[in-house]
């Protein structure tokens, strides 16, 4: 069966590029949108916005704490500030995000490029593996991590529609296109993107494409792995998790993030309360990354499709 939402192939844009394109397009209609940057617009994909709307682009210099509190003040006047930097530097303004944004339920979007091992050669200090856990713990914040450029385009529209704080991951590396333009992102909703009943692979961000590859290869060995794109990490799609738990009985949760506090924890919190089942995790095992190409790092840290296949086989043997 040919899926209406799947279209795996080479993408023209990285997630950060797509974010820059989508927000610039949206800003033509929505004059409330402004961008704050900490000297990384070239890296976050916002150079397009800067060029198109120089008066709505505010360079804040390499001073993230001021930038993030500043956004709270701007939001109080009705602006929709898009605060952009690398995800690891968002942590520098964590307490500012807590008091100047989350506390007041301010309409500010923190959009972070360079998350996870996907950062690659810049190395461990730049590879943010803690952001999902940290921002998930702030009240009022929505936390999302789209998987491909088409989903990113849809997510940009949704986070602007939503009134309140959002933390969204983009991505640094070139990734494959997964979805057609028909794919719609909704805050709080996940989606089954490949059918299967032997187990479910719940993934977000760069792990979604790897989960799809793993599922296809497993199919040849007679294992039918469902793939769920769980791009909304907070709020998490409780109903879908319960449904998949009941139907497939086993989960692999995959994320480019530390094992604590991210997607794995978010899904497990639902499972342990409502539908205890067997769960395995694909994530970084409480350590920091190193320099290397993203694909090399994925292999080394067991975040590639092969690691998913290995784990799936283990799970399925214990039927």
């Amino acid at each position, binding site marked *: 069966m040919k899926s209406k939402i799947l279209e795996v192939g080479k993408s023209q844009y990285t997630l950060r590029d797509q974010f820059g394109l989508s927000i610039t397009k949206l800003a033509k209609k929505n004059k409330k949108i*402004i961008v704050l940057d900490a000297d990384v617009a070239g890296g976050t994909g916002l150079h397009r916005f800067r060029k198109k709307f120089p*008066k*709505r682009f*505010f360079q*804040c*210099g390499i*001073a993230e*704490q*001021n930038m*993030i*509190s*500043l*956004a*709270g*003040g*701007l*939001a*109080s*006047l*009705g*602006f929709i500030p898009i605060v952009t930097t690398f995800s690891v530097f968002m942590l520098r303004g964590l*307490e*500012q995000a807590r*008091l*100047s944004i989350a*506390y*007041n*339920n301010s309409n500010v979007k923190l959009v972070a490029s360079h998350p996870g091992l996907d950062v690659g050669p810049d190395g461990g200090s730049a590879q943010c593996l803690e952001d999902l856990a940290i921002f998930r713990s702030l009240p009022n914040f929505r936390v999302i991590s789209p998987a491909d450029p088409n989903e990113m385009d849809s997510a940009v529209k949704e986070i602007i529609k939503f009134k309140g704080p959002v933390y969204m991951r983009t991505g640094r590396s070139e990734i494959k296109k997964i979805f057609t333009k028909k794919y719609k992102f909704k805050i709080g909703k996940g989606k089954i993107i490949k059918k299967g009943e032997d187990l479910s692979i719940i993934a977000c961000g760069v792990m979604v494409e790897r989960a799809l590859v793993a599922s296809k290869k497993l199919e040849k060995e007679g294992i039918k792995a469902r793939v769920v794109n769980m791009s909304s990490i907070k709020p998490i799609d409780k109903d879908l998790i319960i449904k998949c738990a009941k139907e497939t009985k086993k989960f692999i949760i995959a994320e480019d993030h530390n094992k604590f506090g991210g997607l794995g924890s978010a899904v497990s919190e639902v499972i342990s309360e409502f539908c205890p089942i067997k769960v395995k995790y694909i994530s970084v095992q409480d350590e920091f990354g190193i320099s290397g190409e993203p694909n090399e790092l994925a292999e080394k840290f067991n975040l590639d499709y092969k690691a998913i296949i290995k784990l799936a086989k283990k799970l399925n043997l214990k039927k």
Partner: protein
Amino acid sequence: MSKFDQDVNYIRALILLSIFKAKSGHPGGSLSSVDFLYFLFDKVLKLKKKDFKNWNRNYFILSKGHCAPALYAVGFIKKFLSFNSLLNLRKIDSNTQGHTDLRKLNWVGASTGSLGQGLSYATGIALGLKSKKVNKKVFVMVGDGEIQEGQVWESLMFSAHYKLDNLIIILDYNKIQSDDFNKNIMNFEPLKDKLISFGMNVQEIDGHNFNQIKNCLLRIKKNKKPNFIISHTIKGKGVTFMENKPQWHGSVKLTFEQIKEALIELNNFEKLRKYL
């Protein structure tokens, strides 16, 4: 005694009454900052309760948010707050939270309690008003201990870079922070030189002198530089046993004898004794 000084004495008494009832709070910095605060709300900001729903107005933000009792007492005088709320300072389910809180009161400007953030938040408002081409002012008061925060200097760099001459920063310089005198904790002098080199218009005044407060605000320039007023004050001003003593920074529990002595000195004991 002028009407203004009489009013300020009454506000000082209300601050201490609310802290007495709360059994905690920060009297020292509330008493040092209140002259300037009251002057702003009484003579400059021209805000009524209904104005706070609109963004197109003047702003005041108390970045040294632990001195919320001073802002609440001024708010009571300006009819933004009930007397009951004032007496419920720091109590469960009150709108007078320990630090100013936008979730509870829309007129307090910002949620505070983490030093440095209120200044950046105010700077964001000043930037927003400028970019909307609205000719309104943003006043923000910072504490002396507060300026040890790196974020404060990030923010000053920003407001100078963006030429935010609609931003007026007031430093309540009472020389004492939580544990001790500033100079013993972390010296930041020579401060005026630092601020000038950061691109501020700097004025220095006696923050307990009505005329000096008035005149410094008349001298606010529109020369594409942010304004910074170093307001020299006395911690615990108006209550002799509190003046210039680090122990009255807070968060302190006042005894009945202490509040009585303070209210007597402020000429408001008879008026307020029934609430003790």
